[in-house]
């Protein structure tokens, strides 16, 4: 658990972070969102003490971080930095192995871990382990950055725009990977982005920041339904809210389940249970269908979703 109490950070006369209170529960993904220069990175850097805070206190699992050894604190916090910051003179494998090496893990344990992480992040160890960062594409480099942060299995993850500067497709696939990884290894995560859609997709709770203050700290659904101010309302896109709400809920919640899973008709097209309602609507509009079958992970048809239900209860 991370708690920030009345935390302020000044750079000379400018107040980068202004008296914020924020509690991030264990296992939660808290996404800090806001426009450029609103103090997101500064907040993150204060949590791992790369920047000292000017006022207030920051507690990690109940302990004041200023009483801890900064290196020890950071070794237990994975940090994905805005702009990757990979060591250009180290191979991908060695970059990922950085923290385990600092923790003096035995050689074979490190090798196994690097292999495991590269596989987890969809980087083929055989082709990429011995490459240097300059030989990677932007997306691959960001994956390596994420792998490096996860390497020593820290309890806390700090991610500063880890998928920034990527094309939409790569970004989306990394977000899905992140959700998948988060399902496997639940880490207390503070995630910074200025992309509200990314925030809605990944967060358990979102903290909207503006000019160094936290304007609203709530679940994605509540941020959409009850924006605390006009600023938040504009950020989430007032008129776009219906669809955004739909994209928060999986098809599973609104489908009419069959009594028992059925074998699908050959060539039948449909949705997966975990697809979101927005996608369901899009498929229906495109196919001109009144209802679409829903399949589970094994490919069996478990129900159907109807247009009527979707329109009535979707958002």
């Amino acid at each position, binding site marked *: 658990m991370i708690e920030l109490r009345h935390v302020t950070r000044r750079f000379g006369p400018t107040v980068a972070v202004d008296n914020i209170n924020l509690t991030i529960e264990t296992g939660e993904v808290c996404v800090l969102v806001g426009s450029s220069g609103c103090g997101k990175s500064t907040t993150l850097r204060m949590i*791992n003490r*790369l920047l000292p805070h000017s006022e207030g206190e920051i507690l990690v699992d109940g302990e004041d971080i200023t009483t801890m050894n900064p*290196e*020890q*604190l*950071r*070794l237990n916090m994975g*940090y994905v*930095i*805005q*702009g*990757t*910051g*990979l*060591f*250009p*003179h180290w191979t991908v494998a060695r970059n990922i192995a*950085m*923290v385990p090496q*600092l923790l003096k893990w035995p050689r074979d344990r490190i090798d196994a871990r690097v292999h495991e992480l590269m596989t987890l992040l969809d980087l083929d160890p055989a082709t990429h382990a011995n490459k*240097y960062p*300059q*030989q990677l594409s932007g997306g691959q480099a960001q994956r390596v950055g994420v792998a*490096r942060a996860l390497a020593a299995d820290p309890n806390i993850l700090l991610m500063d725009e880890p998928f920034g500067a990527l094309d939409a497709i790569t970004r989306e696939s990394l977000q899905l990977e992140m959700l998948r990884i988060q399902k496997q290894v639940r880490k207390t995560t503070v995630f910074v982005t200025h992309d509200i859609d990314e925030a809605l997709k990944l967060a358990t709770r979102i903290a909207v920041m503006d000019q160094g203050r936290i304007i609203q700290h709530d679940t994605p659904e509540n941020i959409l339904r009850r924006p605390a101010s006009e600023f938040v309302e504009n950020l989430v896109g007032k008129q776009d809210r219906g669809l955004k709400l739909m994209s928060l809920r999986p098809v599973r919640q609104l489908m009419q389940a069959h009594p028992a899973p059925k074998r699908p008709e050959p060539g039948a097209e449909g949705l997966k249970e975990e697809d979101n309602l927005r996608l369901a609507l899009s498929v229906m509009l495109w196919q001109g269908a009144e209802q679409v079958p829903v399949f589970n992970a094994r490919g069996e048809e478990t129900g159907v979703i109807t247009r009527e239900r979707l329109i009535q209860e979707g958002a």
Partner: protein
Amino acid sequence: MRLWLPPVLLAVLLYGLSAGMPALEPLFHWVQPDKQQVIYERESFLFLLQNHLLLVLISAAVGTLVAVAGGIFATRPSGRDFLPLVSQVASIGQTFPPVAVLALAVPVLGFGEAPILVALMLYGLLPILRNTLAGLEGISPAVKEAARGMGMSPLQVLVRAELPLAGRVILAGIRTSVTINIATAAIGSTIGARTLGDPVIAGLVNGNTAYVLQGAILIGLLALTTDSLFEALERTWDRRFSPQVAV
């Protein structure tokens, strides 16, 4: 290792010429037919070479140590206040021509080996200092932030990230420093240091072109040897620490 072949060959040639200069007497007689003596014999060439090398080596070693330490200090949080001063000294100092450095050294330090050594050290320090600063300051802030953020101690950041990344530039600074100092040490003969500059000065004074040639050839060869040695070192460094440059 093909890389090390040129410096080794040049070194062998340098040693061979220094030891066997008298064997070339007929050649120098042809160059300078009007003189009885055409081979410089006041000191052996080997001794002059050794002395010359020693001056350069000591000044390079001390210069490197002091400059790198100074560069590291000036880029630490505790030494940052000195950074502008240090980098100004480093770049202004270099606009001094080496001859002027020697001319200034004599009234302060007197004649002989000691003053030239001090002059070489101080003067040779500047390019190394400047490059150390450039190398350390040139590292991407993201890399340094990542290193610290991952939990490296300041010393680990320095040793594992900053020095390997700045090393190539520092090495280039040492190369410049040594090359300049090989030439400056030769001029040191004018103020009483015994170096490969001796035959050149003697030759100029006595109008003996053969002496001048002997000194000049050896100085040139020494510079070439050193330069190709650094070339090989830099290539090796690239392979070790920045392989993306190597093909």
